C-alpha cells in the first residue's frame, strides 16, 4: 500500500472512530432519555398509575330493598360556643345502601376552636350494624373565628340489621379538645365506629 493509501485509510479510520464515539455517547444519553420516555408512555397508555381509581364503583348488589330503616340525626354540644345541626334531620334508607348526609357547624366565638365529635346510637344494639365510611368525627375539627362548615357523614346500615329495629338515632356530641387549637394529643373517641 502506498504512503498515500495509508494516509487515506488513517483518515477513514479517524472519521469512523468519530462517528462511533458519537454514537456511543448518544446511546448513553438515550439510556437517560428512556426515563421521561417511559413516564410519558405510562401516562399515555394509563399503565403503572398508582393513583388510578379502579374504574367506577361496582354496583351495590347487597341493598335490601325489601325494607326501610329510618335514621334520625341529632346534634349536641358540650360547652362549645358553636352552633351544630344536621342539614337533614332524618332520612329513610334501605339496609346496604350507601348514603351521605351533612352536618353544619358554625364557630360563634372570635377565636379558633378545636373540637372532636363523639357519636352514640339509639338503640345501642344498632351500633354494630351502623357502618360509617366517612365521618367528620374521625378526626379533630378546628374552626376559624366565625367559620361555618358543612361536613359529610357517609354510612350504610348493614343488611344483617335485626328486623325489629326500624329506627336508628345517630347522635353526635362535640367536645372541645383540651389545649384548644394547638394540635394537642387527640382524645380518641370511646366507642363508635
Amino acid at each position: 500500500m502506498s504512503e498515500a493509501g495509508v494516509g487515506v485509510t488513517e483518515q477513514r479510520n479517524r472519521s469512523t472512530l468519530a462517528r462511533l464515539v458519537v454514537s456511543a455517547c448518544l446511546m448513553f444519553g438515550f439510556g437517560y432519555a428512556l426515563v421521561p420516555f417511559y413516564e410519558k408512555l405510562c401516562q399515555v397508555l394509563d399503565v403503572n398509575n398508582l393513583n388510578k381509581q379502579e374504574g367506577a364503583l361496582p354496583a351495590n348488589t347487597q341493598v335490601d330493598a325489601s325494607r326501610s330503616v329510618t335514621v334520625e340525626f341529632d346534634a349536641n354540644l358540650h360547652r362549645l360556643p358553636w352552633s351544630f345541626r344536621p342539614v337533614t334531620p332524618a332520612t329513610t334508607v334501605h339496609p346496604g345502601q350507601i348514603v351521605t348526609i351533612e352536618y353544619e357547624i358554625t364557630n360563634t366565638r372570635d377565636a379558633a376552636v378545636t373540637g372532636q365529635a363523639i357519636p352514640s346510637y339509639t338503640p345501642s344494639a344498632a351500633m354494630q350494624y351502623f357502618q360509617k365510611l366517612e365521618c367528620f368525627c374521625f378526626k379533630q375539627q378546628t374552626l376559624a373565628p366565625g367559620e361555618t362548615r358543612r361536613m359529610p357523614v357517609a354510612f350504610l346500615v348493614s343488611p344483617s340489621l335485626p328486623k325489629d329495629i326500624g329506627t336508628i338515632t345517630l347522635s353526635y356530641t362535640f367536645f372541645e379538645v383540651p389545649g384548644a387549637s394547638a394540635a394537642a394529643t387527640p382524645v380518641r373517641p370511646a366507642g363508635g365506629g
Partner: protein
Amino acid sequence: MAAIPGGADHAHDHGHDHHPGGIMRWVTTTNHKDIGSMYLWFSFAMFIVGGIMALVIRAELFQPGLQVVDPDRFNQMTTLHGLIMVFGAIMPAFVGFANWMIPLMIGASDMAFARMNNWSFWLLPPAAILLTTSLLVPGGAAASGWTLYPPLTVQMGIGMDMAIFAVHILGISSIMGSINIVTTILNMRAPGMTLMKMPLFCWTWLITAYLVIAVMPVLAGAVTMILTDRHFGTSFFNAAGGGDPVLYQHIFWFFGHPEVYIIAIPAFGVVSQVIPAFSRKPLFGYASMVYATSSIAILSFIVWAHHMYTVGMPVAGQLYFMFATMLIAVPTGVKVFNWVATMWRGSLSFETPMLFSIGFLFLFTLGGFSGLVLSMTAVDVQLHDSYYVVAHFHYVMVAGALFSAYAGAYYWLPKWTGHMYDEKLGKLHFWLSIIFFNMTFFVQHFLGLAGMPRRIPDYSLQFAEFNMISSIGAFGFGLSQLVFLVVVLKCLKGGEKAPAKPWDGAEGLEWTVPSPAPHHTFETPPVLK
C-alpha cells in the same frame, strides 16, 4: 478467497520491533496478536475465578440446609459469578478471538487503533480486581444478582459501588474494543475483499460490535442512575423519592437482551468457521447467515420485556413481547439449519473443534427450545426466576458460547502456537465437558418445573436428589476444564509442528501465514483472486 501463498513473507520485523522485553512487553504492546493472547488468558483466568464461585454455589446446594456459606455470601457468589462470567470471561474471550483473527482473516496488518487496543485490554484487570476484592469490604460484594435490580442495589454497601465502577470500566473497555473492530473491518480489508466475501466470523463480530456500541452505554447509564440514587440524592429508582424500581428493569433489559446476542453471535461466527472446515464444504447459505444474524441483532432490541413478564404489564404488552420473542426463532432456525445443511453429505471428520461445534449445535438448539418455552407469557409466569431459567441460559451460555469458544481455541491453537494440540486430551476434554455439562444443567430443568426458585441457598427436601446430581456434575465440569489448561500449556511448550494450514478443509487468509503466525503479518495487503 485464497491469497498469494507468499503473503506472509512480508512479515519481517522491520524497524518498529524494538519493544521492551519482559513484563513491559505485555504492558506496552500494541500488537493485535499479543493483545489477543492477553484477552484470552485474562478471560480464562476469570473463567476459573467465576467457576470457583459457581462451585461454591453448587457446594452449598449439594444438600438442603445451610452448610458451606451463609445466605449473604451465597447471594454475593451468584452475583459475582454472573458478572464475572458475562463481562470477564465470555465477552473478553471473544474479543480475544476478534483481536487475533480478524486482522488475519481480512488481510490487515493490525487493528485500526493499536494503542486504543492496548488500553481496552488493560482496563480489564482493574475491573476484575474491583469485582473480586469487593468480597473483602465491609458488607461484602454486591448481592443483588448480576442484573443489579433496585431496590436492593440502592441499599447495599460499598461492595455495590465497586461493582458499579467495575461495570463502568468493563463497559468502556468493550466499547473501545468494539469501535476498534468495526473500524478495522470497515476500513482495513485487503483489496478485493468485499463485505460479502468476509469470513462469517468477521461478519458476526461486525454485528456484535455494533450491538456493543449501542447497548453498553445504556447499561452504563442505568448503573450511573443507581450510583446517583445511592449517593447524590436522585430518585430514578428509589421509590421513597418517587422513583420506580421497575423502570430500571426496562432500561437494564434494553441492554440485557442484546447482551445475550453479544455473547451468542460471535459464537455463531466461530462455529460457522469450524463446521465448514471439518465438513470440507463451503458454508451453506452464506448470505442467509449474514441476513439471519443481522435480523437477530435487530430483533434483540424489541423483545426486552420478556425478561420481566411478571412485573405487571398490560396483556397487550405481554402478547407483543411474546410474539416478537418467538419471531427470533425464525432467523435462529435459519442458522441452525444452515449449519446442519453444511454438514449434510460433507466429508466429516471429528477433531476436537468439530466435536465442540457439534456439541454447540445440539445443546444451543436445546437451550433455544427452552427459551421458546419461556417466551410464552402464560408459561413464564410459572417458570420465572426458577431453575428452569437457570438451565435455559446455561445451555445457551455454556454449551453455546463457551463450547464455541473452545471450538475456536482448538481450531486456531496450531496457528497461535505453531504446534498441534494433543488430540487425545482435546477429545477427553470434550467428552468430559459434555457429559458433566448435561449432568449439571439438564436436571435443573426438572428442578425448575417442580418449582425450585433460583438464587436461594436452601431448598425443600423434594429437590434434594436432582441438586445432588447437579452439584456432582458441576464439580466434574469444573475439573474437566483443567484438561484444557493442560492442552494449551503442552501446546505452547511443544508438540508436533503445525503446518500453515493444519486442517485440510479450512478456508481463509489466516491459513496463508505460517504457524505460529509471525509477529507482523500482512504488512503488505494480500491480493484476493
